[in-house]
């Protein structure tokens, strides 16, 4: 039976190869995370956050450039007035709020007109960034900072393009209508534009989970830990993503994403790359990649910066169904951007952004979920077939989980050392429990969701899926 023996040997070798590929990918990812952790720690120690808002004002207010806050709204009639009032109360010397009613089917426009006593106005604008037809502009005599744009529906990217067209400030701030901004968010985020005005083209800010926080009049007034376990796990995830990964990549000029929930951009730079792209659910990432591409091609010095201080709070999904849709969509957006700009992949012409930035997306976002899922399915199967040594498997799994916990605790340590926004030691202990727990089940299921995003990308699925929110008024 030599054929059988040869076949068995081949199966064993295949099993070993798969197992090693899974282990190598896991270790490579963890090594990458460790590198990010070290970079982020260095960045935070060299530029520690300013805790006092008064100091920020003293340092930056005189030199702060005007900013246009762009708030796209679609069917937000219930919350839009409170959101806009909260935006108008931000502490910043020169800003205007451009609310874009993106063809809402509800009473969004009417409630704005009623609440702020708006009337139609004319404003000279250029259709420099493509957007659907603008039906009208509204302003109020008693709110000179507010402009409401009514336009036909075209999606978030389209609404942001309309706001950019209407803006006359050198800096624009993209956000979600339901984002809760810190009162000094603009002052914090504008710092790179003040300190390095020639090079800075975009600044991202840290987004935090608002679940569990006390919210009043559109502001987080008391930070808390979410009671819902899923939201709690996402709190750790956000810390890792923003405080560690994005800060680290910005440090080495390879940041490829600025969250759509909050980001500052030099208006002219956004127009130079054609504004936000249509036809993608990852328009925030796509814009940043386009900026990198543009400046790399021109060989002009530029900077995409990131501010580690929390500037914006968002509501995290608390059910598996909603979270799975959100994660699949995010992943689809990342893949859309990755393949739309595939000429940049590992292309030295684009410097670090092609090699490190896109290399990272390739390993972590494109290949990572596929290989990991392969591992979860094939390794137990091979073990059942008796072709894998279970003792090694357990030991290597323990190393992977150990790494995972170290990274999550590291991200939490960065928060605790430099920002310390969680109220007490108890909340810290609860989050540390979550940092351990997320390695057992949550990360794995996240991979399945990401795989679903890959499937949606491959099958050309469109749309955002239903995003159900509880709303901030029901927060404790």
């Amino acid at each position: 039976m030599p054929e059988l023996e040869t076949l068995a040997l081949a199966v064993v070798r295949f099993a070993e190869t798969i197992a090693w590929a899974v282990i190598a990918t896991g270790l490579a990812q963890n090594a990458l995370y460790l590198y990010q952790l070290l970079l982020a720690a260095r960045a935070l120690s060299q530029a520690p956050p300013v805790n006092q808002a008064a100091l920020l004002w003293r340092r930056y207010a005189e030199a702060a450039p005007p900013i246009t806050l762009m708030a796209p709204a679609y069917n937000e009639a219930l919350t839009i007035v409170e959101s806009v009032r909260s935006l108008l109360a931000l502490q910043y010397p020169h800003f205007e709020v451009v609310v874009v009613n993106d063809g809402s089917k509800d009473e969004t426009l009417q409630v704005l007109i009623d609440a702020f006593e708006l009337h139609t106005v004319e404003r000279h604008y250029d259709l420099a960034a493509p957007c659907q037809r603008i039906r009208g502009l509204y302003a109020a005599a008693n709110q000179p900072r507010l402009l409401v744009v009514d336009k036909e529906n075209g999606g978030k990217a389209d609404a942001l393009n309309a706001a950019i067209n209407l803006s006359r400030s050198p800096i624009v701030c993209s956000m979600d209508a339901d984002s809760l901004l810190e009162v000094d968010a603009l002052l914090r985020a504008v710092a790179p534009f003040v300190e390095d005005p020639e090079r800075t083209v975009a600044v991202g800010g840290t987004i935090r989970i608002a679940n569990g926080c006390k919210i009043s009049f559109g502001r987080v007034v008391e930070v808390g830990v979410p009671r819902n376990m899923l939201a709690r796990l996402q709190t750790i995830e956000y810390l890792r993503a923003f405080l560690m990964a994005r800060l680290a990549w910005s440090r080495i000029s390879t940041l490829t994403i600025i969250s759509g929930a909050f980001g500052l951009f030099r208006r002219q730079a956004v127009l130079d790359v054609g504004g936000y792209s249509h036809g993608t659910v990852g328009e925030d990432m796509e814009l940043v990649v386009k900026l990198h591409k543009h400046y790399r091609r021109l060989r002009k010095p530029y900077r995409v910066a990131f501010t580690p201080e929390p500037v914006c709070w968002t509501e995290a999904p608390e059910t598996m169904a909603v979270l799975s849709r959100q994660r699949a969509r995010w992943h689809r957006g990342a893949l859309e951007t990755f393949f739309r700009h595939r000429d940049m992949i590992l292309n030295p012409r684009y410097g670090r952004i092609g090699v490190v930035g896109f290399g990272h997306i390739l390993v972590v976002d494109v290949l990572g979920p596929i290989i990991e899922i392969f591992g979860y399915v094939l390794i137990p199967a091979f073990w059942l077939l008796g072709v894998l040594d279970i003792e090694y498997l357990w030991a290597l799994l323990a190393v992977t989980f150990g790494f995972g916990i170290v990274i999550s605790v590291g991200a939490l340590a960065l928060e605790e050392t430099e920002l310390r926004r969680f109220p007490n030691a108890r909340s810290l202990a609860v989050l540390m429990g979550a940092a351990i727990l997320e390695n057992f089940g949550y990360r794995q299921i996240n991979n399945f969701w990401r795989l679903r995003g890959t499937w949606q990308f491959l099958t050309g699925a469109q749309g955002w899926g239903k995003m159900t929110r509880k709303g901030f008024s029901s927060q404790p």
Partner: protein
Amino acid sequence: MSSLTLIWVVALVLIGAALTWMTGLIVARFIKESRSNTRSAERKLIIQALSGLLRGQAEAVGALSPFVRRPQVLAEAILDFQGLIRGADQERAMVALRNLGLIEALEERILHGSRDERLTSVEALAALGGEEVKAALRRAIRSKDPNVRMAAVKGLADAGAPPTPSRLLDYAGSGELAPSRIYAEVMRQAVASAPAEGLQALGRQDLTPLMRAMLLDALGRSGAYEAVPALAAAASDPDPDVRTAAVRGLGRLQHPAAAETLAKALVDQAWPVRSAAAEAVGAAGLGRLASMLAPLLDDPEWWVRFRAGDALGRLGKAGRGLLEAAAADDARPIAQRAAERALAEGA
């Protein structure tokens, strides 16, 4: 040790390290909470003592003196307090703090404190005011920390004693100060207090286009009419950023002698220069250039069209007449739209 044991050891070390780290963070939090409470109480005491100084309470000085040995908490409180009071009250409180020897204590922290402490200390130092402080701030410009250097220069400028424009240019040239927006603000203050020196500095051959543009911007904002010829000359510089800054400066000075230069700038190749020139013509009310603005209503660049329309709106009857004519001209649809919007916005 077998490879299996080694892998297990690595795993256990990682897990152990994570758990130790967690425990350490929680213990540290307890300690920090206690320190934070103490610090809040101290700040409250300091603010009370500073308020006492304002009311002329002699014992307030005694309450403050222990904090001179811990200047960081005092520095933070001073910066909070400074925002609340002005004028003679502020000066009285600051004199008392200077007399306590706070200047020396803060200077020591600028030299040996953490990054955060250095910056807060130099800002608090600037808040104290007085000649001694100016000397201390001048010493702080030699700090190794670029943020401290900038804060010291800004402190001097806010105290009405900025470095000369030429000195500021030297700092930027040597890399001691970054050409940030804060630097540009300090340059404006420096040139405003010594326009003649700003003009002289413009003659330097070592200026980059960016520095030249900053200096021109500062000259334009200084209100010094003697800068008009220099700005007019710079409006034909080969660098478009320099030309833009020069034209903007002329617009701010609003001097009729700039008309010829602005007329040339209205047909410049670079659109930022044309846009700045249109704005300047409107700001200076140069009605005789209105006919040159009208063709810009169908400029390929939106900003130029917008500024031209806005400027025509500011030029009174003549400008308005040209806008109305453009708005009625179906043969120029882009100009027509620009004129209509300008009229609507101006109405």
